[in-house]
């Protein structure tokens, strides 16, 4: 195919392409059928003539009481021309007459040639014309031959003497004129009807194609209408539960996921701007009010302390946001080594105990020995710190936080359970979202930044640690980390 034709096909609409391919395939089949019919008809027609010639030949031999392989001179052919038979006996008269009639309706040409092709004798129906002897045709073949400008069906019977030597040929021919007209007309009809069938076929297929792919048009129209502002658009599902139904519902599901993603992104932007602008507004406003009038030293000090606290919080927030951004753009890769869990957990707990004690919360640790996992110790530390500090934040005085580490079928399971306020089931999925807080007020009274659990999730994903969470409101929350066990790099130390 030429490049331009390829290009033409590539921009062709699906309905046209379906119609085109269908038409080509059907056209090919029709062409085969037409050709077969034509050749069968031709064969049948020629067979009629061939039978007629065969019959005539046998009549000639019968009449002359000779056979083709017992040639005894051309004179022995008595009945070469029916019209000469008038001199025959009266008893044959009626039969002859009948024959003559038949010959007139359906004239036959008979001619005798010698082995060199020279005409020895011929029937009167040939008049002055001569049947063309074709030496390359064998005795059993029937073939078409040109005779005085029109076509005849012809057969040449070789005449051999008793020794098997060829002495000449008996040529019998019948005119094909009418039959050829029929065949020619048939061919014309076929050639004419072929395109006449193909065009409506193309149009019909095209309209069927249009109808069957109309749901796709709806998909296109909906997708074109879709923009960030109207992501709630959905494709109407077709009536039949077919491939197009599946396509539409798959695309609808995709739209749904896109909408969720956009929504989350929008939420994040709004939340991030709120979280960053608020401390900024507090500091700015406090300083603006402070500077309007001269004040006592003590007043200045408390306000400036307050501003510093806000600025520190903001700095922490920016740090965490940047860290998340770096993890998300995969600029930071975990440095995974075989890590002993026990000392790491104890280390984190030790750091968190003062905060917990200040709130009147106890932390208990129950670890199986020799839990080694493949992880980045720094990241793992951050995961534990975030989860435990989260647990402290949402627990009330007098409750306790239980940390448990145990082996389970090639995994190490760490669970951190608190007896805090818990999370309603429907909000459990969202707690790993950035800035998500179960209490929608965005209150910062807990001192949290709303990024801790997002960081936990991100860090865990990077190290192939599975984080799951279970929670019962007003009873408590349990975070479970499932890590792959790593072989201890050191031999197990047996207690002395």
């Amino acid at each position: 195919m030429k490049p331009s034709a390829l290009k033409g096909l590539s921009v062709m609409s699906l309905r046209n392409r379906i119609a085109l391919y269908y038409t080509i395939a059907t056209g090919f089949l029709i062409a085969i059928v037409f050709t077969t019919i034509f050749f069968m008809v031709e064969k049948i027609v020629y067979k009629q003539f061939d039978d007629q010639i065969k019959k005539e030949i046998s009549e000639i031999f019968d009449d002359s009481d000779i056979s083709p392989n017992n040639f005894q001179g051309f004179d022995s052919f008595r009945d070469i021309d029916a019209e000469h038979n008038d001199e025959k006996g009266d008893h044959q008269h009626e039969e002859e007459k009948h024959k003559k009639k038949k010959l007139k309706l359906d004239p036959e040409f008979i001619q005798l040639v010698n082995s060199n092709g020279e005409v020895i004798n011929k029937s009167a129906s040939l008049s002055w014309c001569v049947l063309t002897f074709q030496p390359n045709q064998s005795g059993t073949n029937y073939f078409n031959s040109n005779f005085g400008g029109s076509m005849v069906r012809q057969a040449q019977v070789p005449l051999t003497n008793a020794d098997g030597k060829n002495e000449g040929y008996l040529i019998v021919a019948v005119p094909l004129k009418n039959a050829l007209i029929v065949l020619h007309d048939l061919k014309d009809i076929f050639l004419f009807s072929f395109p006449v069938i193909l065009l409506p076929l193309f149009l019909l297929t095209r309209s069927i194609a249009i109808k069957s792919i109309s749901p796709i048009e709806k998909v296109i129209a909906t997708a074109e209408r879709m923009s960030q502002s109207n992501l709630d658009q959905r494709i109407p599902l077709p009536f039949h539960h077919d491939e197009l139904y599946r396509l539409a519902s798959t695309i609808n599901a995709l739209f749904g996921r896109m909408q969720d993603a956009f929504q989350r992104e929008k939420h994040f932007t709004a939340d991030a701007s709120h979280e960053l602008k608020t401390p900024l507004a507090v500091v700015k406003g406090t300083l603006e009010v402070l500077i309007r009038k001269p004040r006592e030293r003590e007043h200045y000090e408390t306000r400036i302390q307050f501003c510093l606290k806000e600025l520190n919080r903001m700095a922490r927030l920016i740090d965490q946001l940047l860290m998340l951004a770096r993890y998300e753009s995969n600029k930071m890769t975990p440095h995974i080594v075989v890590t002993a869990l026990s000392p790491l957990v104890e280390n984190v707990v030790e750091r968190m105990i003062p905060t917990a004690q200040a709130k009147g919360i106890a932390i208990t640790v129950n670890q199986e020995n020799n839990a080694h996992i493949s992880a980045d110790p720094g990241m793992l530390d951050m995961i534990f710190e975030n989860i435990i500090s989260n647990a402290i934040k949402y627990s009330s005085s007098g409750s306790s936080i239980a940390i448990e580490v145990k082996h389970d079928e090639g995994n190490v399971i760490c669970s951190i359970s608190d007896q805090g306020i818990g999370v309603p089931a429907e909000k459990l999925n969202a707690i790993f979202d950035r800035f998500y807080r179960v209490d929608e007020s965005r209150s910062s009274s807990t001192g949290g930044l709303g990024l801790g659990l997002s960081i936990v999730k991100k860090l865990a994903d990077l190290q192939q640690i599975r984080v799951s969470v279970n929670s019962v409101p007003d009873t408590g929350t349990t975070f479970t980390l499932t890590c792959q066990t790593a072989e201890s790099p050191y031999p197990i130390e047996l207690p002395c």
Partner: protein
Amino acid sequence: MRLLIIEDEPGIAGFLKDGLEEEYFAVDVAYDGKSGLDLALTNEYDLLIVDWMIPAISGIEVCRQIRKAGSLVPILFLTAKDTLEDVVFGLDAGANDYIKKPFEFEELLARIRVQFRNKDRADDSLSAGSLTINPVTHQVFAGSTEITLTPKEFALLEYLIRNKDRVCTRSRIIEHVWDIHFDSDTSVIDVYITFLRRKLEAAGCGNLIQTIRGVGYIVRETGMV
């Protein structure tokens, strides 16, 4: 003038209260939408400053409920939501003005003054007889003589002059000049009125504030020397 701030961020509520009290306003603070709405519907405030994203009931809903209750109290939205749609949405919900965070405190003051501006005067100043007070600079003039007042005295005088020719009951004065933490001992008003009268008398406007026995006080434009 008594204001209500509905703002969940204690830092912002804190400096707003500080700064506005220095501007002689009586200021109450609510840290969530529900208590804010309760306060707004049970007290007579002269202006509300409302954050959009607050716990319990959103600022927008607070605004709608207040308007639904038939109150025309000026409401200023003070929020980090800063898109055009947000501004339009906020104003359409019934707010009188929309201030985006972070904001300038001076701008907030100016916008509050706009809400109190006398509809038939070009400037912000208020007057009664020969007495003129300027709520921006907090100066009081009797003719060309300046009178020095304490913040409470100024706030009391401002309230009476803003409501001149109308009787101000003691409870209304308490509601509009003192904040919610003041126990409603109305006798304190009589004390402040005495202080005020003494200072005004020295400047020659002694009988500006008249007593309506058993009810309260009134400042009259006419009928004064």
